[in-house]
């Protein structure tokens, strides 16, 4: 009985939330905001490739038709979302319509959520429209490329490839070994606490280098377990994406130079193992075909022998070697990318509504746009974090005042960067442009981090502020 009442009550709550959402939706149509945005977005999608000509390659086409247009759509919708979300609530308060609504049997949180949902639905519609335009344009323009570039497009862009990496090694044992060796060599040494800290760093770097380095004539083996992949995925052609650096730091010497290596793919001691000799440039990602020669337990063995006579090669632990496999189709991947962008927009609308919950329209719009600009300034935030100062590039010796200012502001920049990274950890535009899969797991994580965690924080703050606000005070003050 109580359960039935709770269900009925939830339905009534939802009905009221949807009533507000429909009102928000209706206002966007009646005030022609929707149509203006739709035309602007489609014009950006269609117009940008007309203004910026691609170079006739698959990558050039992707850069213009996918990367630029998708980025433009995201930014345009981002600004519009902030503007609309600030306006829909702040204007209602300032024009006093909220008094008519709040005096009806609807809770403040329902009004707030109704507005958020209305804006989200609007964004979903606009994103679906512009996304479809981009997708169709991309398909249409791809047919005008030369045959070889069309193949590149099909193999590298119009795919949804996920990456598998070797499990990160545990460096602690290697560090302990190095420390023990050093202590054995230097039995009389009694390092200070500061020196011990430096030594630890040195040992960690050394341990890492030992695992990443491949000396001339030697080889490095990666074992990647792909047993969790479906059989049809394991049977399809794969690629390996590799990146290495060289010990010679002189860029002039390294410029244009390639380094020889022999790749061996297949189980150890297997007759079916395949060999591939390649000469590759350093410090850039390279993709090579990878036959799906997995052993019976689903492990893929890949070894790389350094055949350069002089140089050590270093394959970074994080991204030195990855196996790319087709996880899904481009269309599905594209849709998931759009869903990540929609998550960003959901967060922005929560930020806009939260500001408008206690601020007037112009102030709320200003504050929300400031938040967006901070979000787009990760480069500056990272620089401040690295330099430990907000006075970048001055080269002057810091004064006491500057030191105090840095002490106060740098932690704020650090915190801002951490928060922004939670959101920007997902870059659907880059993933789609490089044919990388945005998996369901990544999408779930994006929704969790961006919408539930970050959006939830702003939603709670906004609802709390709106609940406490005197809704008739704006009129009194005016």
């Amino acid at each position, binding site marked *: 009985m109580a359960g039935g009442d709770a269900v009925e009550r939830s339905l009534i709550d939802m*009905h*009221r939330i949807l*009533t507000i959402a429909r009102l928000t939706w209706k*206002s966007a149509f009646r005030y022609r905001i929707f149509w203006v945005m739709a035309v602007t977005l489609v014009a950006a999608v269609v117009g940008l490739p007309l203004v910026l000509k691609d170079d006739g390659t698959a990558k050039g086409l992707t850069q213009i038709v996918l990367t630029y247009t998708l980025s433009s759509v995201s930014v345009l919708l981002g600004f519009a979302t902030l503007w609309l979300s600030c306006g829909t609530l702040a204007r209602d308060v300032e024009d006093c319509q909220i*008094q008519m609504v*709040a005096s009806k*049997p609807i809770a403040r949180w329902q009004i707030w959520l109704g507005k958020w949902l209305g804006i989200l639905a609007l964004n979903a519609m606009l994103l679906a429209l512009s996304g479809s335009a981009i997708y169709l344009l991309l398909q249409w323009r791809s047919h005008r490329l030369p045959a070889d570039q069309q193949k590149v497009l099909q193999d590298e862009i119009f795919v949804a490839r996920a990456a598998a990496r070797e499990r990160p090694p545990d460096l602690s044992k290697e560090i302990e070994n190095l420390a023990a060796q050093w202590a054995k060599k230097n039995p009389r040494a009694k390092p200070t606490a500061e020196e011990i800290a430096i030594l630890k760093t040195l040992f960690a770097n050394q341990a890492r280098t030992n695992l990443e380095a491949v000396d001339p004539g030697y080889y490095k083996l990666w074992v990647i377990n792909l047993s969790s992949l479906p059989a049809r995925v394991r049977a399809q052609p794969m690629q390996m994406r590799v990146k290495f650096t060289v010990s010679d730091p002189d860029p002039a010497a390294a410029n244009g130079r390639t380094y020889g290596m022999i790749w061996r793919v297949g189980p150890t001691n297997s007759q079916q193992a395949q060999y591939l000799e390649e000469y590759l440039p350093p410090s850039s990602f390279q993709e090579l075909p990878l036959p799906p020669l997995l052993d019976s337990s689903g492990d893929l063995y890949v070894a790389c022998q350094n055949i350069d006579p002089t140089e050590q090669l270093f394959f970074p632990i994080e991204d030195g070697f990855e196996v790319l496999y087709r996880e899904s189709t481009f269309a599905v991947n594209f849709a998931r990318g759009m869903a990540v962008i929609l998550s960003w927009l959901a967060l922005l609308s929560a930020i806009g509504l939260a500001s408008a919950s206690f601020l007037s329209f112009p102030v709320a719009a200003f504050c929300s746009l400031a938040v967006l600009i901070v979000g787009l300034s990760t480069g500056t935030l990272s620089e401040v974090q690295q330099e430990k100062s907000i006075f970048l590039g001055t080269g002057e010796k810091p004064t006491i005042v500057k030191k105090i200012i840095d002490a106060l502001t740098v932690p704020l920049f650090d915190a801002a960067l951490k928060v922004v990274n939670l959101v920007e950890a997902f870059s659907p535009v880059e993933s789609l442009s490089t044919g990388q899969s945005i998996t369901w797991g990544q999408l779930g994580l994006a929704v969790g981090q961006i919408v539930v965690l970050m959006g939830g924080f702003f939603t709670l703050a906004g609802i709390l502020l709106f609940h406490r606000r005197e809704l008739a*005070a704006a009129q009194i003050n005016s």
Partner: protein
Amino acid sequence: MPATLENPTSPPIENNPGRQTAADDFAGPSEAVISVRGLTKVFKDFWGRPKARAVDNVDFEVRRGEVFGLLGPNGSGKSTTVKMLLGLLHPTGGHIEVFGHSPRHVATKSLIGYLPEESYLYRFLDSRETLDFFGNLFDLPPAQRRRRTEELLEMVGLGGVRTRVVGEFSKGMQRRIGLAQALINDPELIILDEPTAGMDPIGCREVKDLILTLAHRGKTVLLSSHLLSDVEDVCDRVVIYYGGRIQAEGTLKELLAKPDAVRITMPPLPRETMQRVLDIIRHDVASEKVEVDTPSQNLESYFLEVVRKAREGLSETSGATSGSLVAAYLRGDAGAPPPAEKILQRLTQAGAPKPVPAPAAPAPAAKVDEAKLAGLAKAAEPRAAPPAPAPAPPADLAKANEKLSTLLGKRDEPRK
């Protein structure tokens, strides 16, 4: 806590005025629907410093079924009080209960209809959409929402402009649609803030008639106004605000009666008869204390009659028309009960609709003199009848307004 309050969706009772409504669970017929104790509101500036004391230690109660007036000049604290009753402003001090609950209690609001002092409507919605939107907030079933929307639009005279957006409406039309939205839920408590502001005299009269109809159905009405005629015509009890404080409180009869004077109204008498009557009166009362005048109907009654006659010969209008009958569900006869039941209902009802209260204050009059007496005698001769018999005329409004202005001070304070 009453169960019906917890279920705001329980449909309002439509066709039986005698039946118990959800509000009955909160308060009996003589109990307070609204209870205000020591209510104070101080507006503060950005730094939290007191800026204006809009309402200052106010106490009053509104009992079930009465029409209660908040009367006062602009800026006296009426609207601030109303907004605190609705939870739109937070009191600085004091205590408010509406149907036994805090003004912020969401479910209680399903029993309230509110018309603010300006019709704050969504300009992009048309009249039908506006009522549908507010009906949705009350979670009315679609069929009921549609029926009430149609009835209310007819009632407020906007049946011909259903699909025109509210933003194109005149102020009077916006007031009408605002009034309609306040009644969409068949509320038990109707809070009307300056309901006749911006309305033409016909609309004003219709609003007042509607208030009386609602009161007859046992609804509680809180009317906030600075228009004396509005309050005088419909209110049972009033409080008079000035400077955020209550200056006077009571029934209109208590407040306006002059116990030391008697007024007799009768058809004109021949000169000799009148002289004899006056002689008899003067025998007991000093001449300067006797006032004789000819009652005149008020301008509202005269205007309404002129319009009524004009309408008989006319005509279309692109604006609001005169409202039709009060919506059936508000009259309490929705669902058209069979004639026999109707008769039974009428017979069991308390009585005829409340008449417009007779004027309690005497109309201004001249002192008795011979010329006046001659004039009165002349009036006894046959002459052209006035356009129509008027209901008992209220006092000369202009003079009464002037009187109250003098009483309360002429300064028109800035709006709080």
